[in-house]
């Protein structure tokens, strides 16, 4: 299971790298969002492993739970990446409104007006 998740994380990093290196601003932002998800999967496969205990929820008749800390980290990190993605989307939209383009190479060399 860990191997599978690790490979998946690798695939996500590949996809994200491709997107970040493209010229369209919106793709770059999507790339950063996917990049953060790759990191979340990595955190999940770190720690004490994926299936070494039951769900970390207080309930009757279940054994020792898995390490819940990675999940807490991921939740926090998801919230942060949600905020960052939202902000960069708004920023990209503003840039599009101001400059009329979302191509990064056309944004180059804008001097102060």
């Amino acid at each position, binding site marked *: 299971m860990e191997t599978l998740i690790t490979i998946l994380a690798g695939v996500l990093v590949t996809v994200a790298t491709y997107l970040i290196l493209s010229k369209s601003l919106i793709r770059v932002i999507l790339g950063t969002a996917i990049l953060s998800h790759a990191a979340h999967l990595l955190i999940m496969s770190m720690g004490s492993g994926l299936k070494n205990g039951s769900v970390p*929820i*207080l*309930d009757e008749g279940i054994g020792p739970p898995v390490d819940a800390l990675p999940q807490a980290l991921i*939740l926090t990190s998801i*919230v942060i990446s949600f*905020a960052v993605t*939202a902000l960069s*989307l*708004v920023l990209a*939209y503003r840039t599009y409104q101001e400059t009329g383009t979302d191509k990064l190479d056309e944004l180059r060399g804008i001097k102060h007006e």
Partner: protein
Amino acid sequence: MKINNVILQTVAKIVAFIILTLAVYLFLSGHNSPGGGFIGGLVLASALVLLFVVYDIEKVKNAIPVDFKKLAAFGAFLSVGTGFGSLLFGAPFLSQSFAYFDLPFFGKTELTTVTIFEAGVALVVVGVVVTIILSISEDV
């Protein structure tokens, strides 16, 4: 832009209530089982976003006359404020406590201070999500 989509509007009226109920359920179950303020807030926001999509933004804004920016700020204030609450009792910052009460209708109920914190989180999420959606969609 005038939209006239009877099926969508009729379904949305019902579905919005189902989503809102789910949001409340997720919010309240969040203390000991999956759920919580963040997820509850997101679901609640999704109901609002659905209404914004189906009806005119103006119409929904008139029906729900809330400044969502201020709602988010109020939620953040509430969340951080609960941290200060523990200062009054001489406990470390962000301490929480819970107790069981016998309430009419509900019977023996667990009341926690975390719920206030979670309510703040939910308000922040609703406020922020709706603000983002509105600010991107408003000036097309």
